[in-house]
């Protein structure tokens, strides 16, 4: 019997998810033994035409990382969906939109102007912006179109499973691969990680007081972080209470607060809303002016609470329509 074919693809991502595959170390050999890698642009020399030539559903599973930002990424996502029986959204960007998804706070025009004209390190006196088509003596050059909105993978194509994390923890990848090989997969649509909050398995759990109250929120560089005490109690914005576990509290082990890359637990629809709710609840103030004093110290609330999940949040992007009283 021939080995099942597997594909990897990256969309709007940093490459960290590909690193996570390499982080399997020697175990990657077991994977290679069990499957036939049919497409992996970052590592192997297969082209789009090779995938296009496959029969529909010829690949058993395809891992797609990165958010969807361009017409090329959308097209490739659709192609992978067509050629693969299972699609697994791999990593935060693919799962929830991720860091690239924060671009939904602005629009394409503002973004391009900022990057190609206003940034202090850029010299572009002719204000040249990237064009989808450009004529040069050798012929015409094309670039994929930039979408105005960044999307998670499941906003473009139906997704079967999600491997969360930025990047997904090695243990979760191994568990997912062995579950696929054994055909022991949970119901479609599942996130392949435990459905409990990070705090449940946090090594500092016992130091979390019964009633947690914070009178001043701080950023990691502002204090000497006590390596044994609950980070929230120290005033750091740890997303542990609202984040799904599965990473063995890697950041907390590294003495840094959880930023929420594994996304919410199963019953939460909007990670940021839950995170802000949890954080506001523990602010030690009851009067309006004092509440403002505590909560206004939080720098960039959207970037903090929706760091990995803006495109899949309920509002999903900044509203750019001005209300119109004359309607």
């Amino acid at each position: 019997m021939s080995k099942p074919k597997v594909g990897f693809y990256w969309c709007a991502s940093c490459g960290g998810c590909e690193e996570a595959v390499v982080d399997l170390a020697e175990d990657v050999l077991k994977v290679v033994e069990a499957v036939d890698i049919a497409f992996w642009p970052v590592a192997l020399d297969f082209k789009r035409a090779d995938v296009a030539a496959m029969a529909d559903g010829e690949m058993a599973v395809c891992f797609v990382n990165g958010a969807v930002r361009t017409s090329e990424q959308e097209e490739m996502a659709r192609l992978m969906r067509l050629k693969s029986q299972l699609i697994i959204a791999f990593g935060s960007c693919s799962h929830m939109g991720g860091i690239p998804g924060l671009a939904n706070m602005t629009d394409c025009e503002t973004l391009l102007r900022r990057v190609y004209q206003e940034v202090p390190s850029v010299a572009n006196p002719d204000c040249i912006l990237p064009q989808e088509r450009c004529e040069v003596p050798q012929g015409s050059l094309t670039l994929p179109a930039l979408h105005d909105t960044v999307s998670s993978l499941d906003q473009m194509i139906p997704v079967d499973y999600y491997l969360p994390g930025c990047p997904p923890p090695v243990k979760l990848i191994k568990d997912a691969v062995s579950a696929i090989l054994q055909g022991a997969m949970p119901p479609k649509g599942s996130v392949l990680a435990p459905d409990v909050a990070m705090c449940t398995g946090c090594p500092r759990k016992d130091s979390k007081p019964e009633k947690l109250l914070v009178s001043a929120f701080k950023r990691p560089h502002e204090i000497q972080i006590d390596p044994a005490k609950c980070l929230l109690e120290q005033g750091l914005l740890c997303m542990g209470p609202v984040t799904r576990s599965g990473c063995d509290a890697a950041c907390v082990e590294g003495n840094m607060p959880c930023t929420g890359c594994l996304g919410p637990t199963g019953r939460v629809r909007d990670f940021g809303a839950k995170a802000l709710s949890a954080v506001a609840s523990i602010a030690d103030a009851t009067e309006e002016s004092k509440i403002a004093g505590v909560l206004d110290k939080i720098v960039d609330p959207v970037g903090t609470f929706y760091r990995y999940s803006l495109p899949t949040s309920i509002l999903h992007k900044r509203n750019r329509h001005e209300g119109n009283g004359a309607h």
Partner: protein
Amino acid sequence: MPDQFEPKIVAFFCNWCTYLAADLAGTSRLKYAPNIRVVRLMCSGRVDPQFVLDAFAKGADGVLIGGCHPGDCHYQEGNYKALRRAHLLRTVLREMGIEDDRFRLEWISASEGDKVRTVVNDMVAKVRALGPLHLAAKPTPQVVAAHAHSITAAAVVGGA
């Protein structure tokens, strides 16, 4: 004015104070703008910020939360939690391009039927002045099969 914009406002009222105040306004035959849709919850502290976002995403032009005055919460401190959450949520809504006047938290006790009237009328007037909230629709996956043929063909023609 036949084509005046009529805002839709979702109001989350607590069972012990504001909902009773709205009831009192009714039995006292006080007239106020008919633009609010009241949802009764046990406590203003039960208003999950997700509810507010969902109301906006599903077409509300404004969201009003009504709870007991500070110190009067049936559950001791639910309204303080509501107050803190509302403060942070307002900051986030502002960043997300939703104006401050579209989201309001008010303490209205069971005896303040008249305050229901003034708050609702005032909010409706302010939201009416802002106009409708046009939120962009969220992208949803399209059926792949419909595109299947063109993709395969395009990909082959496109080569590498």
